[in-house]
């Protein structure tokens, strides 16, 4: 798009590129490099940019000492369950909004989307006693259900905008063959909408996997804690901070989601930007 003809234009372009790239990527590099440094090399006023003596001790102790693996398991279970639950609810609701016409449809849709107006922290004030009264406080089931709040509105809109592009002729044709509404949805619409479904599930998964507030508040037992509050409690406290350990544990925790994104990122970005760019 730009024409970089003179050296001044080239310099300007690549200087801006370098500055923002440094801001975006250097922190990740620095954290990774720190994770591989023994404490002697880590806490220095003249830091080494590449670890001189690569050290795996922080990774070993993060994995073998303390509850990180247990917390990863808890995060995996609650995030996967809430992602699937959210994607199923969003797919049903999105299909209803996209392909059927009925009174009060638009107000209902606005209602679900307006959920973004209510900060999670405010809802939590009432979700807490509500879970308590049905015995779901401090349970992974309770946490999973509460996670629906995060992603459902945007997920519903994402499924809606995808289903709107599914041709009606496809559905009408199946009807002529005598298929029921549910069968059409399951056998025809869902298979071609699988990419959207995966995107939405991944979007919800990310919200839950990254969550700190709900997990910190709704889970009080150590054995049910997820990674977000788990990391915070273990590595950073008033008395001492184990930065090498924190960096190593951070990358262990981030690894699953980085792997998923490495595979699915293109499709994911298309899905998420659909809500804002028309």
């Amino acid at each position: 798009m730009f024409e970089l003809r003179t050296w001044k234009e080239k310099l300007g372009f690549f200087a801006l590129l370098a500055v923002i790239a440094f801001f975006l990527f250097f922190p990740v590099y620095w954290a990774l490099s720190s994770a591989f440094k023994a404490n002697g090399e880590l806490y220095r006023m003249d830091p080494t940019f590449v670890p001189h003596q690569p050290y795996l001790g922080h990774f070993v102790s993060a994995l073998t000492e303390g509850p990180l693996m247990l917390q990863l398991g808890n995060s995996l279970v609650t995030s996967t369950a809430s992602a699937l639950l959210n994607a199923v609810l969003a797919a049903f609701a999105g299909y209803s909004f996209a392909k059927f016409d009925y009174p009060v449809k638009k107000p209902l849709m606005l209602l679900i989307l307006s959920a973004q107006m209510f900060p999670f922290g405010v809802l939590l004030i009432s979700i807490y006693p509500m879970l308590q009264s049905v015995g779901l406080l401090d349970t992974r089931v309770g946490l999973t259900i509460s996670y629906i709040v995060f992603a459902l509105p945007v997920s519903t809109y994402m499924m809606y905008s995808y289903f709107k592009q599914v041709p009606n002729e496809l559905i009408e044709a199946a009807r002529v063959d005598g298929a029921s509404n549910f069968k059409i949805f399951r056998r025809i619409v869902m298979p071609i909408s699988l990419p959207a479904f995966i995107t939405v599930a991944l979007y919800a998964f990310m919200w839950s996997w990254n969550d700190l507030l709900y997990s910190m508040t709704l889970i009080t037992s150590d054995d049910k804690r997820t990674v977000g509050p788990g990391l915070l409690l273990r590595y950073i406290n008033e008395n001492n901070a184990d930065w090498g350990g924190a960096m190593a544990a951070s990358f262990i925790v981030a690894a699953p989601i980085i792997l998923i994104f490495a595979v699915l990122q293109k499709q994911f970005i298309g899905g998420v930007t659909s809500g804002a760019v028309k």
Partner: protein
Amino acid sequence: MDMATPLPGRTHRKPGYLKRGDRLFAYVILAPAMAAFLVMVAWPFIDAMSMSFYSYTVYDPEPVFIGLDNFRTILTDPYVLGSWVTTAIFVAGTTLLTMFLGLSWALLMYQDFAGRGVFRTMTLLPWILPSTVSAFIWAWMLNGRYGIVNVLMMNVGAIDSPVQFLSNDVGAMVAIILTRTWISIPLFMSFFLAGLQGMDFQQIEAARIDGAGNLRIVKRLILPHLKPVFLVTGALGMIGNLQQFDIIFALTGGGPVRATSVLSIEVYKQAFQNWSLGMASAIGVLWVFTLMPIVIFYLRSLFRED
């Protein structure tokens, strides 16, 4: 696979609805999401609204109705009111910085150059890291003794001795704004990049023949083209930043003292540290009213074409 709704420049075909639409089926499949919304969003908010008229603390065995007293307290307490100012500084700083850097990065990534693909892929990284992890990374970089930011600044002579960024008011605010901006750039870059796909190249070529330089093309053609994207992403950014909790809590906990105590932190502390649920609800209700105009604006622009 692209599941985006029509972008500027593409033709928009109105899909219409199924003729023999089964209303019952439509209601039945909507019901689960609706129920989830009612139980997990609508009811908790209504509950919080009614709770805002009560005093309900650890000293009250039962909620005590006190009318508008909570709101009166909020409006006369400079500390609580200060949360709105703190929130405004955080939201304005973060949203503006994110939009500026997100747009710049999108323009850079729209240009064809060797290695662009690698940059684009890596860009997502800050966004997908769990918030605790991002907070760790920045807390370590800004560490008051061994942090790399201090080291670099001392090396270039900008400072004489290490700065305790997270223990002073301005430093803590700058830290949370920078960290949140860092996390948000990838998403905003994606929004702007999606908007740029609809650019009219003939227009740019024509302007170039007329002798327009790169900056002029950005100012005269690209920025006006992106105006709708600006409005919607600006609203989305403000909504997200107004609700931000995780990063701030993990980095500063709202401190030092109250320097970064935004609304989300304030409500959390009132509710789950002081167990003053009535007061927390009252602040929460006012918080929702702060968000409402932006959400309405966002929803209106979302539905303009439907």
